[in-house]
């Protein structure tokens, strides 16, 4: 590179509060006071969402789901971010944020419809302040930004009322960082000083493309070009993800504007159940990342440092087993869409010509089905 590098920075440390070995470490900018009980609760979250994921993959293999996008390896990023949200905050996921859904109290079965092909999502984003999954890469970052514009117009930032001030959390991937929409959302967020936090899970891969295809500098630096802060956090460290996201959301709620968070993590599984990563990456890469497993380090910490019930780990495992059964049984019971449902929500007010098509189709389906 040339010498007139006015605008390239030294790489700061990645924020880490819990080492892969399970040691608590401090970070001056991100002090985190958290009880062992709360850490245990995070452990439970991590284990349960991994279990949901495992179960969904199995269901896909059995033909019960058409597809699944696994979160394996990204549990800490999602639980850390998700647990930083307050009730009134709004989350905008991609198609992989099953862990965030969990934190928002969305029943995992709700997520399965679109992967099973019984609906296209079909949940109410307002019910748990968790937007519908968005498949077009990056599109949801603009939705999040627009939602944040609404929050500002509702007078729900910077009032000091903790139950009122609202932040928006937009999820996207390393690959998505190249999309025009994502960069436009940075433009809007910065120009409007909007209460939106951009949470990028850099899982190192966009299907088969390594992150180097998207950027030659660490992604957290992107936001500096737009005039708002960026920070890289250990995406496999649930405490660091919690602390960093909490801080960013606090800033957003208190009218201090947007933050970009790069959660440095790894997609342990294929991109989706359709993908074959042996074609493009070495298995040894995943082996290395396994040493940084987001759950193991919390378990190590709890085992060594915390006073928890002796039955704790067994209880969580039992709960996971029950959850798996819920997912398994519930998935098989998800109803197929009705013929009418394909037409009924295209418009709020259905045009006559579409009603005719609906009736024709419904008659056809009931005839063929009969």
């Amino acid at each position, binding site marked *: 590179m040339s010498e007139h590098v006015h605008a390239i920075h030294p790489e700061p440390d990645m924020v880490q509060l819990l080492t892969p070995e399970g040691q608590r470490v401090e970070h001056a900018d991100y002090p985190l006071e958290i009880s062992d009980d709360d850490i245990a609760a995070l452990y439970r979250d991590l284990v349960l969402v991994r279990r949901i994921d495992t179960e969904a993959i199995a269901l896909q293999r059995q033909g019960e789901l058409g597809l699944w996008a696994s979160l394996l390896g990204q549990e800490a990023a999602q639980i850390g971010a998700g647990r930083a949200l307050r009730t009134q905050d*709004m989350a905008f996921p991609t198609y992989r944020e099953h862990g965030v859904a969990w934190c928002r109290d969305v029943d995992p079965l709700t997520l399965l419809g679109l992967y099973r092909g019984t*609906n*296209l*999502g*079909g*949940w*109410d*984003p*307002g019910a748990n302040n968790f*937007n*519908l999954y968005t498949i*077009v890469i990056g*599109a949801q*970052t*603009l*939705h*999040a*930004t*627009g*939602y*944040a*514009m*609404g*929050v*500002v*117009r*509702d007078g729900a930032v910077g009032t000091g009322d903790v139950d009122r001030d609202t932040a928006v959390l937009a999820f996207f991937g390393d690959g998505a960082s190249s999309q*025009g*929409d994502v960069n*436009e*959302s940075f*433009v*809007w967020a910065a*120009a409007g000083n909007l209460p939106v936090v951009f949470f990028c899970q850099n899982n190192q891969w966009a299907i088969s493309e390594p992150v180097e295809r998207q950027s030659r500098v660490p992604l957290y630096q992107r936001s500096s070009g737009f005039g708002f802060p960026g920070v890289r956090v250990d995406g496999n460290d649930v405490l660091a993800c919690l602390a960093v996201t909490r801080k960013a959301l606090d800033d957003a709620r208190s009218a201090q504007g947007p933050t970009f968070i790069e959660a440095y993590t790894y997609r342990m599984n294929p991109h989706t159940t359709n993908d074959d990563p042996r074609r493009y990456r070495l298995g040894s890469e995943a082996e290395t990342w396994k040493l940084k497993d987001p759950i193991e380090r919390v378990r190590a910490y709890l085992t060594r440092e915390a006073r928890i019930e002796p039955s704790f780990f067994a209880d969580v495992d039992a709960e996971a087993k029950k959850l798996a059964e819920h997912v398994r049984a519930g998935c098989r019971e998800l109803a197929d869409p009705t013929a009418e*449902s394909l037409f*009924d*929500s*295209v*418009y*709020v*007010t259905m*045009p*006559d*010509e*579409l009603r005719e098509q609906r009736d024709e189709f419904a008659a056809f389906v009931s005839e063929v089905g009969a």
Partner: protein
Amino acid sequence: MTESKTMAKALNDGLRKAMEADPKVVIMGEDVGKLGGVFRITDGLQKDFGEDRVIDTPLAESGIIGTAVGLAIRGYRPVCEIQFDGFVFPGFDQIVSQVAKFHNRSAGLVKMPITIRIPSGGGIGAVEHHSESVETYFAHTAGLKVVACSNASDAYWMIQEAIADDDPVIFIEPKRLYHAAKSEIADAPTPMYQARVVRPGTHVTVAGYGPTMTTLAESAKAAADDGIELELIDLRTVSPLDIPTVVESVRRTGRLIVVHEAPHSFGVGAEIAARVTEQAFYSLEAPVLRVTGYDTPYPPSRLEHEWLPNLDRVLDAVDKIMEY
């Protein structure tokens, strides 16, 4: 009938009414604030409703539409201005994959009451990308409604109906008529999504919308001088189409010409021809003819009036259809 206004003023008044009626209505776009838009359609609105409700956005159409989606999720009712027809395309993905599909994706739980205003069509002597007719792209997209006003009264009422509609509406404004002759504003609207017979006739039905309606009015006068009575239909709505009104007319006249500025092939005329032929097969004395833009990019302005559907081209088609 009350006062007489230009279409530009009628739209401005209609927008003002809509903003007064519902505090969730926000206007957003490039230069819509202080400038009042390059066509002054939003003139004075930022001054009166503030910068939070009339928003000068950064220069990016995908951002304009995408943030409107987010505002809609938050309960707002955004009205987006696209500065010129040819600049809707950077926002196309958000329109087609988000605005159009969101309500359906949510199984009806989230509404997208977004109005996208597009100053449209040619005839103003402009440079490339400033004179296009983009309605067909949106009409072919399930989940969107597409309407076009052709006069001040419709403009005034339809913009309010579009904004009040809980579905997303692509609102086509024939820019070359913005400051054409004033006309009176009706006391009440013709319901949107209905076509209107604007001139009764017996020999040939001619259907158009938006910018072509003034040309059709002239054509009907000229044809009448030759003893041919055109029945003119202002479609007003492109999606959904009001085919019953057209078919009813065609059953009487036996002949139909469809007119639009958008390119000929795979245009609105094709759909109307196909549907009317299906529904009135035995009434047609002649195939449906189309007078449209040609299958070329919009031409340099020095030849635009020849290229556009104009009086001569419409009368040619009338002659042709009468020969069947």
